[in-house]
């Protein structure tokens, strides 16, 4: 009886911590994104509420909380309500297996690596059902696209996580962290890390893979009909909560998890999560959006073959040198990364330097660059952050 009560209390504490992680992520990261995006675009970000606009997300939260939420008359009321709950389970349930410090894991499962991907399935279901329940053409298209994209990029993600399981010889996340005591897997397997990063960004529906919410064609994708607190749930807590949890997963799988000098476990995790979020924001502010056909081709024709190749090579090295496989694996992985980056740069350069293509595009879209401008361009007003 006493043991049961003790367990219940510690579980409630863990639940509060897990919810707090999602909420902090959902409040801080959108603010950080708007701020940095403003800096990149030479604009002010939110800067009115509090110092540096720091209380902007809280103001937004209060506003969304007190606004009227609308269920469209033609929507399916019940699934419209259920969909955010299904989608919200992903960031909450993934946290169960993440080790936050040496002793703190909510549920130390032996199959943690499979569990993470398996639980991710609820996110796809929630988005698909949200798109369908809205009974809006944009929402439905957004939901379908999102589901198709997420399932396509889940395969490279799965295959990459298998590489981590092979290196760690375990599917328990605590063991994965313990094996990275001397060297992080990002140094051993940069190729796996890059595939995981790209597939993860696609899985999170972030730029350059944010087609499901392509505002220029689909209004807002599957969240078009969601308003007020329901919108806040989907946009703030589910999407940015997923970014936070994905950062936690990446840190655990590739960057040594909670391990690090000087700081405590949760502090190191926070640093690594912020780093991953900054990478996503950087992608957001620099890359243009892909087309649907390019998006699917990239998953099936590039990422899946690369991850299968990586898996086979890692397996080969571990079989050949069961004791010191780290060095050959690292050599293979780093050289593969260099070759791929070189090939990519060469391709991009070829496209950019293609004179006929370039001139044609310029004539079509930026004729003023080819002819003299009609008058002097007025000087731009300098704006700081």
């Amino acid at each position: 009886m006493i043991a049961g009560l003790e367990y219940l209390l510690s579980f409630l504490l863990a639940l509060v911590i897990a919810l707090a992680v999602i909420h902090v992520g959902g409040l801080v990261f959108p603010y950080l994104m708007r701020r940095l995006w403003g800096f990149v675009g030479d604009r002010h970000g939110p800067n009115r509420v509090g110092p540096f606009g720091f209380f902007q997300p809280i103001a937004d939260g209060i506003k969304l909380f007190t606004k009227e939420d609308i269920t469209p008359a033609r929507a399916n009321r019940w699934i419209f309500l259920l969909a955010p709950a299904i989608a919200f389970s992903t960031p909450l349930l993934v946290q169960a297996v993440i080790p936050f410090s040496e002793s703190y894991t909510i549920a130390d499962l032996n199959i943690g690596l499979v569990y993470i991907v398996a639980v991710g399935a609820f996110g796809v279901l929630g988005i698909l059902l949200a798109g369908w329940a809205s009974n809006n053409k944009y929402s439905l298209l957004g939901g379908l696209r999102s589901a198709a994209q997420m399932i396509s990029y889940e395969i490279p993600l799965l295959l990459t996580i298998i590489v981590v399981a092979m290196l760690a010889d375990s599917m328990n996340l605590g063991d994965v962290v313990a094996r990275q005591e001397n060297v992080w897997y990002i140094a051993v397997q940069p190729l796996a890390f890059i595939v995981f990063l790209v597939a993860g960004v696609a899985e999170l529906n972030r730029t350059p893979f944010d087609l499901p919410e392509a505002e220029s064609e689909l209004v807002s994708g599957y969240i078009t009909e969601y308003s007020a607190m329901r919108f806040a749930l989907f946009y703030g807590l589910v999407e940015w909560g997923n970014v936070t949890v994905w950062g936690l997963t990446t840190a655990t799988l590739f960057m040594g998890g909670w391990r690090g000098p000087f700081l405590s476990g949760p502090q190191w995790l926070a640093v690594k999560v912020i780093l991953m979020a900054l990478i996503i924001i950087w992608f957001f502010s620099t890359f243009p959006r892909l087309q649907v056909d390019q998006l699917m081709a990239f998953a099936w024709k590039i990422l899946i073959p690369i991850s299968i190749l990586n898996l086979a090579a890692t397996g080969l090295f571990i079989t050949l040198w069961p004791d010191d496989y780290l060095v050959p694996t690292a050599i293979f992985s780093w050289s593969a990364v260099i070759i791929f980056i070189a090939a990519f740069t060469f391709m991009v350069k070829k496209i950019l330097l293609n004179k006929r293509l370039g001139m044609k595009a310029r004539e079509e879209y930026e004729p003023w660059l080819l002819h003299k401008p009609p008058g002097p361009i007025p000087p731009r007003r300098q704006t700081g952050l």
Partner: protein
Amino acid sequence: MNEFHPLAFYLIGGAVIACALGVVIFKNLIYSAIAMICCFSGISGIYVLLHAELLAAAQLLIYVGAISILILFAIMLTRHRSGNIDIFFHRQSWAAIPLVLLVFVALAITLGWGRYQASADSLHAGTRQVADVLFNQYAFPFEVVSLVLLAAMIGAVILAAKERKR
């Protein structure tokens, strides 16, 4: 606490049966699909109770993550209205009742009076033991699985190509 409480089994089992009934009873296909997803998740819970962790995760990954998406796509692909629709294939219910009863009796006999040999060790087999048996003892059937998957893949491609031509 090495054994689960029987209450957990009855709770999950009851939920699974209720969801399975929901799949058949709901008139709206999407509701049926959601009940089916709950049913799949519940079965994964039963695997957990039986200490088959890997199977539970595989159940979630394949059934909830992949097959339910496939079924949702299939429902959304077909022309249907939510709400009342004429379900013409429900007219055979008179024939279904004795058939279902027969299956129930057959299952009850096999499960209730059948003999199963399983040691306590094999019931609590970890992932490593499962993998060991799968890749050593059943290596050939495992390779055949890849052929089955290949056949399914080719079938899917041919079906899609036919649809595209139309």
